[in-house]
């Protein structure tokens, strides 16, 4: 049975970094990948989880009656398409023609039923729709109905991809080919993780693979940031931290990410 609810980790309004214009980002829980650098580790598991921030604990000893200090928080809330849409619709006045909703996560394509319902409502209300996906999953109808797609291409080599994300990228490469046939504009993004994929060879390989696509609008590099580390700690997961790429390093790599190159 297809669930009419999805577990949402967070909804962020006024985002200006997750697609064009002003956007509302829906972070769904659940992801088939397990990237070692993941900056949203609370979105990997599908179920709600408790996160513990000991520095906020006031030592009242009343945890079982509910925590209000922010030390123990439950991440994940079941929401219907309508409930999520109401959050999106709240910012209608700020979207204009290019802003709107971005489905993110986790892997939003694990939530196709709810997202399709939301997209219908957005279309009726002229709200732009976009997705941030690993493309490990594929839903032709859903992706085709979007206005904009941001797809990750994290590592070119399949074995290396499997080592650092938990899955091979063979299926992702195939899904890129399918994606290009949908006639939906998309951009490709690579998170730059020092020690893993911060080489010009890596970037050039990905660039050469994607530059032939007819619907590709750009290839972006996103510098690693350690936002996920405190969340790993709060979830009781092993902490994995990397160096933050320097501006010079990013500029150099970006020069190899030019699709005309």
């Amino acid at each position: 049975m297809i669930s009419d609810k999805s577990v949402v980790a967070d909804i962020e309004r006024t985002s200006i970094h997750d697609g064009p214009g002003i956007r509302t980002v829906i972070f769904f829980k659940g992801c088939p990948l397990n990237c070692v650098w993941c900056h949203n580790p609370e979105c990997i598991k599908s179920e709600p989880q408790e996160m513990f921030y000991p520095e906020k604990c006031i030592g009242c000893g009343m945890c079982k009656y509910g925590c209000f200090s922010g030390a123990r928080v439950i991440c994940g809330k079941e929401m219907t398409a309508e409930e999520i849409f109401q959050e999106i619709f709240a910012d209608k006045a700020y979207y204009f023609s290019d802003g709107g909703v971005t489905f993110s996560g986790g892997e939003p394509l694990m939530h196709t039923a709810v997202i399709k319902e939301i997209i219908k409502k957005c279309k009726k209300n002229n709200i732009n729709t976009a997705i941030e996906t690993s493309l490990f999953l594929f839903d032709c109808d859903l992706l085709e109905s979007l206005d904009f797609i941001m797809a990750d291409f994290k590592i070119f080599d399949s074995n290396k991809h499997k080592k650092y994300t938990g899955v091979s990228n063979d299926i992702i490469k195939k899904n890129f080919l399918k994606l290009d046939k949908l006639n939906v504009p998309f951009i490709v993004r690579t998170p730059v993780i020092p020690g893993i994929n911060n080489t010009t060879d890596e970037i050039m390989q990905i660039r050469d693979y994607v530059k032939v696509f007819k619907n590709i609008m750009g290839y972006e590099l996103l510098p690693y940031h350690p936002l996920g580390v405190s969340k790993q700690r709060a979830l009781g997961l092993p902490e994995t931290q990397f160096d933050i790429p320097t501006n010079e390093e990013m500029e150099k790599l970006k020069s190899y990410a030019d699709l005309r190159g």
Partner: protein
Amino acid sequence: MLTYEDRIRELRKKKINDTLLKRDQNGYTDLDDFGTVPLPVGYKVEPWYNSKNGSFYGYDGMSENFCRVMDAHPPYVDPLEMLCGRWRDMLVNYRGDVHYMPKWRQKQLSMEELEASGVTAQWSKRWDEIRFPYDELKPLQKRYNITTGIDGDAHFACDYSIGLSLGFGGFLEKINKYRTINPDKKEFYDAEEKCVNAIIRFIDRHTDEIKNLLKTETRPEIKENLEQMLETNLAVRVNKPETFRQACQWVTYFNCASRVYTRDGAGFQLDTLLLPYYKNDIKNGILDDETAKFLIANLLLIDPHYYQVSGVDEKDNDLTNHLSYLVLEAADMINISANLTVRVHENCDREFLKKAVYYLLKNKNGWPRFCCDKTLTEGYMKNGISKEIARKRIAVGCNWMCVPGKEFPMNDTVKINIAKVLEQALIEMKGIEEKSTEKLFRLFTKHLKTAIEVTAKGINLHLDHQWEVTPELIMNLMMENTLEKGLDISQCAELYTIGVDGAGLAVVADSFGALETRVENEKLLSWDEVYKNLDNNFEGVKGERVRLMLNSSPKYCGGNTVSDKWARRLTDIWVDKVKAQSMPGKRQLIPGWFSWSRTIEYGSVVGATPNGRKNGEPISHGANPNPHFRVDGAVTAQSSGIAAVQCGYGNTAPLQLEFDPQLALNENSVDVITKLILGHFSEGGTLININILDTDKLMAANNNPELYPDLVVRVTGFTAYFASLSPEFRQLVVDRFLIHM
């Protein structure tokens, strides 16, 4: 040869030095910069007191002391500027009000004055309590922490077109003409005449100073500038201005006088009023755009008056013109504290709007800010005002609008601390068996009504007697019906739409929201527990847990939360009660939400509140939400929340935003901010103040303000030099900023 650019650079340097010098002279001010310059060594005024309480009042007291202060003012001529004149001191410094006095003035107080200042327990002696006491109002004013407006001055707007068409000589002719028609108003006309003559003497001293400087000036381009400055001075001494430079110089002199008199900072529609002069000079080949820009920059340097630019006329035609662009470019050129407001309308020039946003992002100095024509005009019309008049009600104050020449609104001088009103309702409910948020709301409404009634009595007392206490002798010169009737503007304005602001909305809304959530819906707390913790200020770990429980309830601006619902309900009752308040004659009250910069002061008298705020902590700022109103701090949620609590009668509930410039200065960031502005206004917003600050710079400046004398922050509706603010106020700005990061 010095270029305009070289000269501006030097003037900025001087301004920065002056800011630090002024701080040493005046102490921390927590106020607008006002454009004053430091006092020279040996500056002294001998005030003339006509009241035994150590102050002066009325036509004779105000005009005589205005002359004394003006005559004591040394001329200010900087050969690098094109305009001359500055103000340094003001009459209120001599009205026995030791609490508001700058440091230098306190040092100068004679024993006699000190004794006089202690004659009564009166905080400010701007009001003559001996003749017009209001002791019967004081208990309730204190109970509800009301800023009464009694003793206020200025806070309305002159019609500069009156002055520009007459000149100072024209004022004298008009005074003499109507003096014969109204012979019983001799005292009024004598005082007005005396003031105008003091302004002319002030100009004459500048003329002498220019002549002196000309004797030694050797740089040809600067000598030429001084010669033109001399010519301009001679031209505007009594005659009306004819050229763009003369108009700017005339405005400068009037502004200096008006500032000295009552610190009046209301400007005008800068880009349309000066447009005929600009066009005429361009046509005659005596002005170019670079010179026009330098002149506007000079005007803005001299005084950060509140000027409006852009907007629409009564037929919805866009007013944006070439001069509007030059104003922005000039402000960018001088790039100091400025109080420019762009009036946004659906027909407004989008390129102009984007350019205004671009400068906001580029300079990070808090200017310009943005107001919405539609909501302000349509709202004001609901008071029974025509569209033509409503359109003329322009942004000329901290959070406020005024119809130049016609309106006497006392805007921003009257406020009710509704957190204090809530406190009274809570105290009353404590003794009642049946407790509920509904009951509390009914009690809140009852106390609010009482607070508004006593506020109205204070306003009426003020309006009935202001002319006998602080007649507006300078601003009267450019108001309608004043000189014609021999009456002070406080007596004869066409419009008495009096602004009354509520302060502390978020504290009260979140308190109701928290009580409904934790006590009534979830039943996690009893009323007794709430009262016990309010009384003991959430002491101990258990108290802290209760505080956090209340404070973590869904807040106002959280996005259709229980507290958002309460904020709208509070707005409805606030508007109903303010509008229902009966007032004599043409007077009517207009509601708004605004705290000005009094959040610390207002909070200090309010005990712990049910939103988890501790005793004495600052109340919320204006219509803004409390800190941590949402986990994501979404600006759009804040914007929508504030748009939903607009009072709807033409006064504002401003949206105050703080951004870190992680936003790169590019087309995209300009686009995002523009959309936020247009989005807020489309939802019903009235006014937006935006601070774009660099977090690291702000933190460093908070530790060492002397090292950042050029850092300007938008405090509320006004901008100020960060280094001039008190440590407490700096911290408030920093805290407010950090919660959005």
